[in-house]
């Protein structure tokens, strides 16, 4: 008997899965390799160099776009997380009340409508508002990002709340804690991992957004993704490999943090 039979074994699945991982990583690996390529031809390897990282970081447009992205993302993520935390507290651990399901559907709406539709809808509204008020600052982008980040922040916070035992808060209240103290001393510390996960999710979602930002940004308000979109449409320079590799590194770090965070929780 060659290999004992197992009910879990499905012929071909392992091959497909390994192929899938290979194909998933081949393009990204190629990108990373070419980011460190010394030559300037896109398809040809000419030895190791950091020159494209240097040129990318010396490019004022890139730095400016990066800083703008890094301004928008934390602000939008912060507001989204605060709003989502409050909303999550309002929609968990209670007998369903009238309007609760609707509330949740409402908050999740940005997830259900295609991004391009939200983008053109905001374009239509904001272009009018810009004319009326004359204000053309980053506020529009921040507001839009906050809106579509809320459901992403809402998800882990709500999930965390649902696993939390209400009796802890009841016990604290029984021990003479006033509602605000109960929240600050019991609920918030327990909820913290969920809030952190929600914030990170919102941050990354904001940082990654291309479509909505592309449609609503005013002149000269490139974020890093919209700048890259513009570059990729025209001609691909090795600089793009370098920036993309940096982006990829950020993802790896964020995902690693996520895994560590969820491990500690259990």
């Amino acid at each position, binding site marked *: 008997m060659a290999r004992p039979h197992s009910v879990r074994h499905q012929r*071909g699945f392992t091959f497909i899965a390994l192929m899938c991982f290979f194909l998933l990583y081949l393009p990204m690996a190629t990108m990373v390799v070419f980011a460190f390529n010394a030559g300037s031809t896109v398809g040809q390897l000419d030895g190791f160099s950091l020159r494209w990282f240097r040129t990318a970081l010396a490019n004022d447009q890139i730095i400016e776009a990066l800083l703008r992205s890094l301004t928008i993302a934390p602000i939008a993520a912060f507001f989204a997380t605060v709003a989502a935390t409050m909303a999550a507290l309002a929609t968990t651990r209670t007998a369903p009340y009238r309007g609760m399901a609707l509330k949740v559907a409402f908050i999740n709406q940005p997830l259900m409508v295609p991004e391009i539709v939200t983008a053109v809808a905001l374009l239509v509204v904001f272009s009018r508002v810009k004319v009326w008020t004359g204000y053309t600052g980053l506020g529009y982008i921040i507001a839009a990002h906050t809106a579509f980040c809320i459901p992403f922040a809402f998800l882990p916070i709500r999930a965390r709340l649902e696993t939390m035992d209400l009796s802890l808060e009841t016990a604290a209240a029984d021990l003479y804690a006033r509602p605000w103290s109960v929240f600050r001393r019991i609920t918030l510390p327990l909820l913290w991992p969920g809030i952190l996960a929600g914030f990170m999710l919102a941050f990354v979602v904001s940082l990654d957004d291309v479509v909505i930002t592309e449609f609503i940004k005013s002149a000269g308000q490139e974020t890093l993704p919209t700048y890259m979109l513009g570059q990729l449409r025209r001609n691909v320079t090795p600089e793009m490999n370098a920036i993309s590799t940096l982006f990829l590194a950020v993802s790896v770090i964020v995902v690693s943090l996520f*895994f560590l965070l969820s491990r500690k929780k259990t």
Partner: protein
Amino acid sequence: MSQAQEIAEEMARRSVRTRWWLSAPALAVVFLFAIAPLAVIVLYSFMAKGDYGDVKYWQFSLDGWFSVFFERGLFDDSIGIAQAHVSILWRSVKLALITTVVTLLIGFPTAYFIAIRPPSQRDFWLFLITIPFWTNLLIRTFAIQEVFRNEGVLNTVLMWSGLIREPLKIMFTDLGIFLGMAYVYLPLMVLPIYASLEKFDFRFAEAASDLYANNRNVLWRIIIPMTRPAIIAGCILVFIPALGAYVTPRLLGGGKNLMLGNLIELQFGQGRNWPLGAALSLTLTGVVMLALLVYVRAASKEGRSHG
């Protein structure tokens, strides 16, 4: 009514009121910056188009909706099918469907593979799926572009090995768009199916095997039916963004092979036909809602039958 009952009811009322105040900021932001603009789009779709973009305010017109599927002849008033729009709509649905099917065919075995790893190894494989999930879509599209381009890795390897003489043209074709979308949306298929398979109790598989089902029958008759809600969820998660895809067809399809997302953008840009753009957006939203409805129906049916 007793006094205690009255107090309890007053407390419940107060709690619900607090809950409304707590959710107010989130509801307000989502309303102002996601739902209200959608309502504006609905209005715009029924207005006449402005000469230089925008609309003629409060001038009712069905032209926007009309031109989603039909067009008037240039010289006479003959009405014909808007070939360009219909073909783009068809291409979008077709590519989104193919993407969904192919990601399912690859994603299910992959999720299954991860789910049957020993628990200590699962995190590692899951990590490998999560990384692309968290990486900017633009960057992943760019990465696959690097592979497909005429002088890209794929063609270099194929030509070097002597399998082909001319580089394969993948960029700027429907094939390229589909491959790109399958690549970028694959994690969206794997993750929900994995979540369900990870919880799957393989004692059901053993029971079926005990009852003379070979492993393929166990898969088709037991595992797939029992994880069906997650499979549908994965399909919806891939189908919706694929149908409304903008970035991937933009980069991999070039200017010619448009999808619905690009057609919509065109109306708000060079096309200067905002009512049509609005109507197209709502058409897209409608199809998506239809897909979601199918999902909700299927999920609730599942819930009923499982009690």
